[in-house]
């Protein structure tokens, strides 16, 4: 073990992590108002009885990621991949265990900061600032972002409110803003790469560039092909548990057995949060 530590620098250490969501107002089958009243009166009793449901999204996961690794996260829908990614980014608190990181890992995504009522132009500025870029950096990158998104190919759309965009155009602009910044530890939810075929190619290219600059990359994907193309190590999560951790070929082979047949899974469209 010692010699591995000597020539490899860990960038992310996940130590026995549990992540639990608590959902209010799921009173077990009772009328919701009485259930809520019950919850208030019987405070301190078992949370389950009080109508708070716990969702144990990630269970006791441990791994170490080293500098220069590209790690794929696979698993069926709802297995806790995105949740784990958010916890590594420090965006979701963990219930038990610790996550140690080198610097600040960033999730590639900016959707939540954008406002549909504002013009694309203002959203580029807002999104850039929200990701922690300075005003000067945003100004320098502005033209690059707009050109990359291809929003202006069909006319001057960047000065229109985002609510007037087609869903594909909006997704392209969001990806272009998110991909404008370089990161140390980069977390990618591949559902981001949407749009038409030509834009998909461009965004794959951009993700490759981002990976080159980043120290460590995590990639969540349902496309075994893109995992195979980009990752040298794969973590397989199933029902929140780390089922397997190893070289891409081994893990993917086991995963394909599990899901039935090699790579039938197409990249599934995922509703952006």
């Amino acid at each position, binding site marked *: 073990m010692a010699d591995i530590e000597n020539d490899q620098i860990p960038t992310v250490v996940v*130590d*026995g992590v549990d992540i639990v969501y608590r959902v209010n107002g799921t009173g077990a089958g009772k009328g919701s108002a009485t259930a809520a009243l019950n919850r208030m009166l019987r405070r301190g009793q078992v949370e389950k009885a009080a109508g708070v449901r716990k969702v144990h999204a990630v269970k006791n996961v441990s*791994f170490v990621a080293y500098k220069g690794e590209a790690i794929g996260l696979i698993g069926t829908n709802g297995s806790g991949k995105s949740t784990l990614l958010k916890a590594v980014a420090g965006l*979701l608190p963990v219930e038990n265990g610790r*996550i140690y990181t080198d610097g*600040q890992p960033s999730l590639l995504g*900016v959707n939540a900061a954008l406002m549909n009522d504002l013009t694309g132009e203002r959203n580029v500025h807002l999104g850039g600032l*929200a990701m922690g870029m300075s005003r000067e950096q945003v100004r320098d990158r502005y033209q690059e972002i707009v050109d990359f998104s291809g929003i202006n190919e069909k006319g001057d759309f960047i000065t229109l409110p985002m609510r007037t965009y087609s869903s594909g155009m909006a997704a392209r602009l969001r990806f272009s803003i998110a991909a404008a910044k370089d990161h140390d530890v980069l977390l990618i939810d591949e559902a981001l790469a949407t749009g038409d075929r030509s834009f998909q190619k461009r965004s794959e290219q951009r993700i490759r560039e981002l990976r080159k600059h980043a120290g460590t990359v995590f990639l969540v994907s349902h496309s075994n092909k893109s995992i195979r193309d980009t990752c040298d190590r794969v973590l397989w999560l199933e029902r929140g548990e780390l089922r397997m951790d190893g070289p891409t070929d081994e893990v993917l082979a086991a995963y394909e057995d599990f899901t039935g047949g090699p790579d039938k899974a197409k990249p599934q469209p995922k509703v952006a949060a």
Partner: protein
Amino acid sequence: MSQVLDTPPPTAPPADDDLSALAARHGLTVSGARPSLPDYVRQLWARRHFITAFSTAKLTAQYSQAKLGQVWQVMTPLLNAAVYYFIFGVLLGTKRNVPDYVPFLVTGVFIWTFTQSSIMAGTRAISGNLGLVRALHFPRAALPISFALQQLQQLLFSMAALVVILLCFGVPIAASWLLAVPALVLQSVFNAGVSMIMARMGAKTPDIAQLMPFVLRTWMYVSGVMWSIDKLAKGHHDWPSWVVPVLQANPAAIYIDLMRYSLIDSFHGSQLPHHVWAIAVGWALVAGIGGFIYFWKAEETYGRG
């Protein structure tokens, strides 16, 4: 699958208890841990452009679907003032006791609305923006501060309308109008502080957002927004002697009366409580610093739930 689980991966992590030691040896820090207070202030300062851009964006987005657009920034406070004038000035006849009643009322309504909407927006600052909190990394205090700033910008539009109303009702321009600036600064600090307190409480218990309108309405009626507190007391000689000073020292009444004192010539200094500026500064410091520290103490928990 047990044999799969037993396969040792090539970069197998050391046993669990060694992981924290490994992390410590390489100088890794806990992800999502709360930064120290000075670091937090520094991070917040680094995000100042985001805070201003976010608040301006929110303000602009508000009326972007309306045909009249940004005209509503000024129209909304004017219509508000008209409604209150109709109810309290015409129907109830509160104006009999107060000189320059319309400027008195409108100033009260605008200044109160600033505090009220800052607190309401603050209550939902975290709970209503979970998507943002869970997607991006920034000091969370940026949200309540940004919402308070949005309300301040809104108030500045209202103040422009107020100046027009004042001049229409023959209130002379005076040097004391300059006092409005420090009064507004203090009130903004107070509002931002209370917003941060409410943001933390609202993040833990979203139900508070349902409760706040009632608390705020009660607060409005005891703060002399529509009537003068000392005139009201003259009709209630049975009140204990401490009631009026306490009502007058409450922060909303302080900031409202300070603004009336600076803008309206018939509102005299004698109507203000003693040490009014000291109280105004005190409220701003207590709420501003206290609220900031209170909010920072729970920084790492925002986004859960």
